[in-house]
């Protein structure tokens, strides 16, 4: 396929879409599928057929619409109506609504802050295109950025554009993407690799999963542009086996892109060749760490190794390797299409662009949101999230998963960016955000995350392997009312060791949930130890006198 043929295909597809009077987009990402959206889609297709509207109305499966707690979601174009909590029985009414008035009881208010306060870059196609059709992606300008990079830009110009954008790694650490790319580009190697890290594993987080399920071609395009920029010819996507739908859609996407020569040899008639392979992870959290991930791709036990050398100089099989997260790659096509300066205008001084968060826990609207960097936590929790249900009181928000920390009420007006979150003892992380109200016990929360780290530790280095096990045991004792103030001292000392002495990021950040809750909710720890009570009423503490003799 040549560039011209691709433009023709885009036009043809756009025309085909416009022949329909309206489109009913049914979310077929995992969240809505769990609520039965596939049956809803079938029912709507039948209802359309029953009324003989097949030529006028297109029913298609699309990516995530965001408000996962109110699934299955439906988005009707061009009217812009969003229906929520749709059941198969509602199908005839919805189709009827296309010709008369929309179904009032199912409509999501269009001025809902949940939708209004968001800003979509990574998720711009979610909810409008069918993730299983490459033609849909091409029709909305897909692969144009790759064409632009291959035909109008040199590799160093691509890197310069990414550097100018100020994009930072979305996997959690926030390393400047342009700098990483230029390091790999400069490295010497007979071969180079590009790896997409899709081993998302934080409890409650599903940003990368949804991006892959909603718009897989965007990630492939980002990877191809990266490969062109750094001089790689082969790419791997490391995705965990727990994401079967993402894997299926990626497989389809890779096959489609190969068929259209958007992946493979001499892409679009240029000298650039790039192929992508999938590697399925077996569900080890530590394989999200880049050196463990590479070991796993090489077929070895997935354990990290000390850095340096960094993957940029000594990566997969010893060759220079670029590793970026799904969301980072998903940001690349719009940056190349619109220019780095456009991207740099969004966000704060040092954190640019948008960030996708999985908003979960004790908020009214849970789901997937994309917000500009610098938005405050208050806006996320109370405007977009709709506040705390049942009139309960907000207590803390946990960001960054097991590596992050709990941020208390006094920091609600904190702008969300890499530096601010680090300053208050948490991290941006990959985008998990769990809201907690007064019914959550912070010691119990810390125990939950430490237990996660304990069972996900690879066991290679001593501080993480044994340290997390003792941390868990100390927290178990405290939550059981068996703790002493000496245990608390030991807990703090051990946190310091595990944080400072562990080999990889998993161990180094494992104490964060404990440290941040100790910093802001120390009184809860003391209540468990001294008063033998759990202020939130979560932990089952038996008072000494209640224990039968």
């Amino acid at each position, binding site marked *: 396929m040549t560039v011209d043929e691709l433009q023709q295909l885009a036009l043809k597809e756009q025309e085909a879409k416009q022949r329909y009077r309206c489109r009913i987009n049914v979310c077929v990402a995992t969240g809505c599928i769990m609520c039965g959206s596939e049956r809803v889609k079938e029912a709507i297709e039948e209802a359309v057929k029953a009324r003989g509207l097949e030529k006028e109305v297109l029913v298609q499966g699309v990516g995530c619409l965001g408000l996962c707690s109110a699934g299955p979601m439906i988005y009707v174009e061009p009217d812009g109506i969003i229906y929520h909590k749709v059941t198969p029985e509602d199908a005839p009414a919805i189709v009827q609504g296309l010709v008369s008035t929309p179904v009032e009881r199912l409509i999501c208010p269009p001025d809902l802050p949940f939708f209004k306060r968001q800003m979509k870059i990574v998720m711009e196609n979610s909810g409008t295109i069918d993730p299983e059709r490459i033609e849909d992606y091409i029709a909305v300008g897909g692969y144009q950025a790759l064409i632009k990079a291959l035909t109008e830009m040199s590799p160093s110009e691509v890197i310069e554009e990414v550097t100018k954008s100020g994009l930072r790694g979305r996997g959690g650490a926030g390393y400047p993407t342009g700098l990483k790319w230029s390091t790999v580009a400069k490295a010497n190697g007979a071969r180079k690799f590009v790896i997409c890290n899709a081993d998302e594993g934080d409890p409650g987080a599903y940003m990368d999963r949804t991006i892959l399920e909603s718009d897989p071609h965007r990630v492939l395009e980002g990877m191809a542009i990266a490969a062109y920029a750094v001089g790689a010819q082969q790419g791997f996507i490391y995705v965990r086996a727990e994401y079967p739908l993402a894997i299926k859609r990626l497989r389809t996407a890779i096959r489609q892109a190969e068929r259209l020569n958007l992946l493979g040899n001499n892409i679009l008639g240029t000298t650039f060749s790039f192929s992508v392979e999938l590697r399925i992870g077996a569900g080890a959290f530590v394989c999200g760490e880049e050196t463990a991930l590479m070991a796993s791709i090489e077929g070895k*036990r997935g354990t990290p190794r*000390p850095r340096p050398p960094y993957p940029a100089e000594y990566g997969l099989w010893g060759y220079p390797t670029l590793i970026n997260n799904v969301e980072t790659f998903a940001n690349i096509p719009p940056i190349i299409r619109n220019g780095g300066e456009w991207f740099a205008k969004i966000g704060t001084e040092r954190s640019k662009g948008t960030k996708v968060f999985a908003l979960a826990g004790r908020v009214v609207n849970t789901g997937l949101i994309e917000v500009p960097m610098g938005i405050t936590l208050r806006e996320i929790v109370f405007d977009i999230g709709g506040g705390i249900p049942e009139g309960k009181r907000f207590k803390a928000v946990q960001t960054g998963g097991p590596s992050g920390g709990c941020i208390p009420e006094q920091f609600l007006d904190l702008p969300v960016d890499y530096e601010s979150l680090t300053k208050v003892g948490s991290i941006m992380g990959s985008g998990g955000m769990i809201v907690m109200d007064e019914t959550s016990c912070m010691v119990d929360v810390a125990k939950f995350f430490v237990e996660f780290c304990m069972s*996900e530790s*690879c066991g*290679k280095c001593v501080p993480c*392997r044994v340290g997390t096990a*003792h941390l868990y045991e100390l927290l178990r004792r405290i939550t059981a009312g068996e703790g002493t103030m000496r245990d608390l001292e030991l807990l703090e000392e051990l946190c310091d*060791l595990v944080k400072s002495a*562990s080999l990889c990021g998993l161990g180094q950040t494992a104490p964060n949930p404990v440290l941040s809750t100790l910093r802001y909710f120390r009184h809860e720890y003391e209540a468990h130890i001294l008063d033998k009570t759990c202020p939130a009423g979560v932990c089952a503490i038996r008072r000494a006198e209640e224990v039968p003799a």
Partner: protein
Amino acid sequence: MRAPVKIKTLTIDGKEVSAREGETILQVARENGIDIPTLCYLEGLEPIGACRLCLVEVKGINRLVPACVTQVEEGMEVVTNSERLIKYRQMILELLFSERNHTCSVCVVNGHCELQRLAQRLGVTHIRFPYRYPNLPIDASHERFVIDHNRCVLCTRCVRVCDEIEGAHVWDVMGRGINSRIIADLNQPWGTSEVCTSCGKCVHVCPTGALSEKGKAVAEMEKRRQFLPYLTVMRGGRQ
């Protein structure tokens, strides 16, 4: 013409030392009589930086680095024995002692054990963490050797020597985190391994009483490692 050897100068604990490019902090320190404690490291095997006992401070780097895998750089200022480092090393030993069962008085390597020696040297006299005492098996199925998982510190020296030097790769690690365990072949009794050459290298590189020869009573098992530097030289200086 051979490429000239590049020399780096640095200071370790205030002492000015010189080193060849590519040498690690640990190698240079030992050449200069500065002893950094190690456990998973063994000269002749690929270093892995796992036990974290050799962590040192380097001025300008805000995290601690393992001396066994960190290469020297010009002008580095290394501190190997700060109060903080000593405290961490003591705690790491406490963690190791509490992890499994290390009762020296009934151990075959009592008096010849690296873990015991480290504890004595670093002044670890008591353990503040509860002993975990997991119920682990002893595999005596091999005709000449025994593996007692209760004494294992998971340094993986046996895994590496069998893979890198002997080339048999009998040993590997199974499980995650605190449940990690050394296994023979595909987690089968050692005596049934068809690739084990019974060379005994694993037994002699083991720092504790986890691997020992049969027939040894308490304190009788001494480890002999002379073969390792010799084999390393014979293999062409690969370190």
